């Protein structure tokens, strides 16, 4: 069984619907630790030793947040700046994260078509996620495809519920190591691993 650390960030948790539902769908799973960054560090004063210890205790690291300005809410960046220290996460002697897996889980208002060379946003989600993907690579981690919730403003409760169920399944599979790497290399989004009959 792999241990999963969710780095959760939503600055207005009380207004969040999708991220909250998703997070609540997985927080009771064995082996899953939800690290709610805005709740833990409301003034951005991140306890670096504590965060680094958490990282070493888990095998899969997931950044879960709404997609703000094609990136993450500010605290995720602060977290990366401070926690992923040279000599800890990267550099000749920084091997604490080596071999762990990294993944993003994001929600965005735009539909999938909008995120393409022809679409309004001109780039794909995976292109926008380049800083995360490359940061993980620099830390000698393996990247997983992102779990993405598109069109977040138009989803009804049932739709969100479906996404939450899928997310729970994905996390469970990751935890129990039920995903083969061949399958991974063919997927754009992690969502695709769940087969829906329809």
């Amino acid at each position, binding site marked *: 069984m792999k241990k999963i650390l969710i780095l959760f960030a939503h600055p207005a948790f009380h207004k969040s619907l999708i991220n909250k539902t998703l997070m609540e769908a997985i927080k009771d799973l064995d082996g899953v630790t939800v690290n709610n960054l805005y709740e833990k560090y409301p003034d951005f*004063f991140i306890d670096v030793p504590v965060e680094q210890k958490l990282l070493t205790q888990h095998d899969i690291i997931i950044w879960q947040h709404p997609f703000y300005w094609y990136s993450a809410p500010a605290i995720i960046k602060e977290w990366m*700046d*401070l926690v*992923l*220290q040279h000599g800890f996460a990267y*550099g000749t002697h920084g091997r604490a994260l080596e071999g762990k897996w990294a993944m993003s889980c994001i929600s965005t208002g735009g539909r999938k078509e909008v995120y393409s060379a022809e679409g309004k946003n001109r780039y794909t989600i995976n292109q926008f996620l380049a800083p995360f993907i490359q940061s993980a690579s620099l830390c000698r981690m393996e990247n997983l495809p992102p779990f993405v919730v598109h069109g977040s403003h138009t989803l009804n409760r049932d739709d969100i519920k479906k996404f939450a169920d899928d997310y729970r399944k994905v996390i469970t599979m990751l935890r129990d190591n039920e995903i083969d790497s061949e399958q991974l290399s063919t997927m754009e989004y992690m969502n695709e691993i769940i087969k829906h009959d329809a």
Partner: protein
Amino acid sequence: MHNQEFFLNALIYLGAAVVSVPIAKKLGLGSVLGYLLAGIIIGPFVLRLVGNEAGEVMHFAEFGVVLMLFIIGLELEPKLLWKMRRSIFGLGGLQVIITAGIITGVALLLNFQLNRAVAIGLILALSSTAIVLQTLSEKGLMRNIAGRSAFSVLLFQDMAVIPILALLPIIATLGTPADLSDTSINSIGQVAQLPGWLQLLIIIGAITVLVIIGRFAARHIFRLVAETGLHEVFVALALLMVIGTALGMDAIGLSPALGTFIAGVVLADSEYRHELETTIDPFKGLLLGLFFISVGAGINFNLLIEDPWVIILFVLLLIFIKFVVLLILGRIFRLKKGFEFLFAFLLAQASEFAFVLISFSKQNKLFDEQTSGMLLLVVTLSMAISPLLLIFNDKAVSPILARWQNKLEYDDIEDEETPVILAGFGRFGLTVGRILLANGIKVTILDNNPSNVETLRKYGFKLYFGDITRPTMLEKAGIENARLLILSMAEHENALKVAEIVRKKYPHVKILARAKDIFHVFEYLNLNINKVQRENFHSAAELGNDALIELGFSKYEAYRATRTFKHHEDQVTEELYRHWLEDQGKFIQETRRFAEQVKETLQAEKNYSIHETDCAWDVDSLKDEAKKEK
């Protein structure tokens, strides 16, 4: 063997105190009543463990009053005293004159000669410094307006003892001398026999000398002795100074208590003030206890048994007269609602100076054996009753007053579900309350200072006047439906008491508390209350932050440094708490608390280096590696 007798007596007195005071405190009676009961029990009418020497012990123990006034003097700077002049001379003066006048009138009605009636009036007009001040400090009322006023009156009375002592011999010569078997006249000082103007001159001279020595010489002497590093020599010097002052004042006919009080005031702004206070404090406590025990032991129950109703009537009459005069004066001097009752109940007993004055009058053939015995009994009983009066005030009078003043509001509270109770709405609670109100949260605000209550109500705050330490008050404020109880009051001991009660009776209510210092934080942690803020830690840290900025730190750098320090403080606190748990039985005296806190904090800090949390922003190791790659 004389020694053996001394130790046996010490054993009895100390034993009685150790057994009875904790019991009295547990029962909510206060230590004064505990000591008095202990005295009665070991006295000649119950266990007969002590006999006639109780009087001697009392004379010895009166020195406790002297020490107490010295300590009070230390806490009062001259400036503060000057501010209190109106209440000292106005309130105090009127109290003595009016009370003395009425009691004289009553004594005349009882067929006393005019000169004796005047003497009785003057003697009984005084109130007990020992009992009142002990009660004030025990209940944390020294800062309360009623407590302050009571203190002013006591101060005036202490000064009044001097002219009264001078007057009594003169009064005595005006009437027929009392029929006394014991005719030895002990003068209480040679100066008392000198003419009035010379006496005044000597008194003024003595006080001047005292002030000059205290101002200019004392500091050097203290330093010399402190430099020896021998604490016991310092103790000896402190006692020597107080005893010397007391004897000197006694010799010139001044009250020793007043003299040492002046000495205390003179030393109030010296750097040795705290050291002096801590040194004298235990002696004061012990001697005062002894004094109260001897008062208890000295109650002449024979006289009481002979004429119980007359004595009881006199005691009640005395208390009634004093109470009514005080109550009216309290009103005239605009004591806030509810406080004039506390003020009047506080001072309604007779004074321990009465013991001195009565025996002095007897020596001057003013009173006969019968009169002085009866007066002594009345004085003693009024002192014994006085703690009960305060309990009566706490339990019966002030709840009724509070209800009467807040009738409407109380009804409001009962109907309403209030999520948050905020206890204490002074400078601290105001900020807490404003944050909550600004975010639309309903708050029941309790405060015991009616002046605040009225002002803030004007601005639309919902405030209620009441004493939160009273369980019924908590119930009325809706503690059962409350989600939070915020203890923002300044009376830290009371806050702890409330926290403990609420923890037990209403475990669902979350408690948040303001703490005075780190030890106070620990006491809350011990009750499993961990949302505690030290009342000045954060504002002090912010000022430190401003200092860093002034010194050239960039604002964000200063912010991070300050924030890191706060984080580090949490760790230090945790560590200190563990230490504290290990030797929890350790008593820390009030005056030593801060010194102790400084010591322990700095000690614990040595083991931590402030963790540099921001190293990722400027990493030398990264630069080194980049250079190597080149």
